[in-house]
């Protein structure tokens, strides 16, 4: 039974990876989930310098999901490169570094800095809804997406994944722009901008007022967008958004995703990623599927 998938020349032992921001660099979860069993670990976003993130409260639970407004707190590329990358290199998994920035220069600085590091791919976060500059500002305009993608591609030593925002009118337009800019792979969806009001305190549940919604309630939106994008571009897709179980992951694969990222599920079950890897294999056995690649995008 073949579970490996190929993303822009990078062979993953299986299609299951972590969603950026939910898993740190894997240090805390390694106690519960064997990182060697994952297709890849996608790190929390890292910028050129340390970022303090947003005030608290940074998370709120909503029905069937959660809102977060962490604000891309990160220790900066120097500490990340000396601490987090060597940690992950101890494991037999691929390393995908999520890159964030407030300006094109910030993104490029991190991308160039990573050129000599032993990481497998870069995921460019142009879709974070929780920071005032950068993030989603780059990701809601097709011309901006094509421009930043091309600029990153020119400097990147590793294959480039562009992570797209669902907070747009037509995601296929954004996906095509990233493809035109030279993106090797697309990740979707980032979180959906939401809001929760605390009726007892009569104020916002999050200090940032708005936050990114994730969790099982967003999954149908994410599956629909992956399906649309899979039919609009020819580069591979990493699907994510509310994947809690292997069944959820398989929906994304059947809709056209080559790989999947598991995020919020880690908070409810610290070994959710491993359960999903095992569940996909169980499904393949039950359905007599010899190669997982036979499942990608077969629902038309």
């Amino acid at each position, binding site marked *: 039974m073949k579970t490996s998938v190929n993303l822009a020349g990078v062979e993953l032992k299986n299609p299951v990876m972590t969603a950026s*921001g939910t898993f740190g660099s894997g240090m*805390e979860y390694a*106690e519960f989930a064997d990182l060697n069993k994952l297709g890849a670990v996608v790190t929390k976003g890292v910028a050129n310098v340390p970022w303090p*993130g947003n005030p*608290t409260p940074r*998370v*709120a639970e909503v029905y069937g999901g959660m809102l977060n407004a962490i604000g891309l707190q990160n*220790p900066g590329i120097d500490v990340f490169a000396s601490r987090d990358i060597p940690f992950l290199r101890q494991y037999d998994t691929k390393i995908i570094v999520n890159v964030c920035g407030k300006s094109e220069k910030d993104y490029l600085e991190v991308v160039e800095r990573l050129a000599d590091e032993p990481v497998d791919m870069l995921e460019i976060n142009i879709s974070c809804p929780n920071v005032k500059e950068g993030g989603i500002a780059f990701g809601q305009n097709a011309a901006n997406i094509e421009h930043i993608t091309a600029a990153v591609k020119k400097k990147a030593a590793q294959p480039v994944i562009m992570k797209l925002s669902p907070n747009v009118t037509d995601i296929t337009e954004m996906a095509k722009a990233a493809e035109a800019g030279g993106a090797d792979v697309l990740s979707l969806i980032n979180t959906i901008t939401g809001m929760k009001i605390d009726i007892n305190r009569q104020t916002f549940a999050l200090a940032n007022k708005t936050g990114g919604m994730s969790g099982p309630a967003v999954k149908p939106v994410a599956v629909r967008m992956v399906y649309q994008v899979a039919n609009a571009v020819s580069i591979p897709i990493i699907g994510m958004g509310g994947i809690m179980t292997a069944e959820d992951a398989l929906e994304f694969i059947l809709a056209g995703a080559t790989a999947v990222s598991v995020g919020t599920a880690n*908070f409810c079950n610290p070994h959710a990623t491993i359960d999903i890897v095992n569940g996909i294999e169980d499904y393949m056995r039950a359905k007599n599927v010899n190669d997982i690649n036979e499942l990608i995008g077969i629902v038309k």
Partner: protein
Amino acid sequence: MKFDETATVVSQNEISDGIYDMWIDTGNIAANAVPGQFISVYTKDASKLLPRPISICETDGSRLRIVYRIAGKGTKEFSGYAQGEQIHILGPLGNGFPLEAAAGKKAILIGGGIGIPPMLELAKHLDCDKEIVVGYRNSDTFLDKELQQYGNLTIASDDGSIGTHGTVIDAIKACGVKGDVIFACGPTPMLRAIKQYAADNGIEAWISLEERMACGIGACLACVCKSTDVDSHSMVHNKRICKDGPVFNATEVEL
């Protein structure tokens, strides 16, 4: 070492208005816990995704006791569990109170509201002279009789219906409570006042903080507090309450 376990509810009682007392039989969590640590309790209702962090009130061999307030639908669900219920918990989480900080000293243990429960396990483990100060909303008290076994107990209440009318600091001043080191858990305004009181009086203080959490193990960076210095993990003025705390030296954090 943390453990991801299916545990069994041994007993549950409502001990005060909306305050529940649950004993849980665990595999390894109880035996490995130290005073001041907490557990994550997962709801069975799958529409609620995030575990509820609840402080450990007491341990006894493989059994662990939590005393918690119904604060929303998740804790409401927990309050309905009967003996034999299987529940998903993760722990022990965070760092406890530094017992060595009280060696040869007189300790003041301060609990406010639902911050009182961890003081029981701490009182049991601190081998020194102890003053215990607790603050309630009103005379509907809990754990006071158990705490009394371990030290001189002083009570404050918001409405004045029992003990000193006012805050725990009002009670400490009114009753002349003296000590060399403070251990405290309670709402942020109380901890802020204790940090100030400790600084004014040159007393070492260890305070247990709380914040909205998601992962509970230090990965998601939801539950940060402001740190006085640049933290060596975050590289900014943020510490993770779930992982670097919940207990901090009061001088390490800004409230």
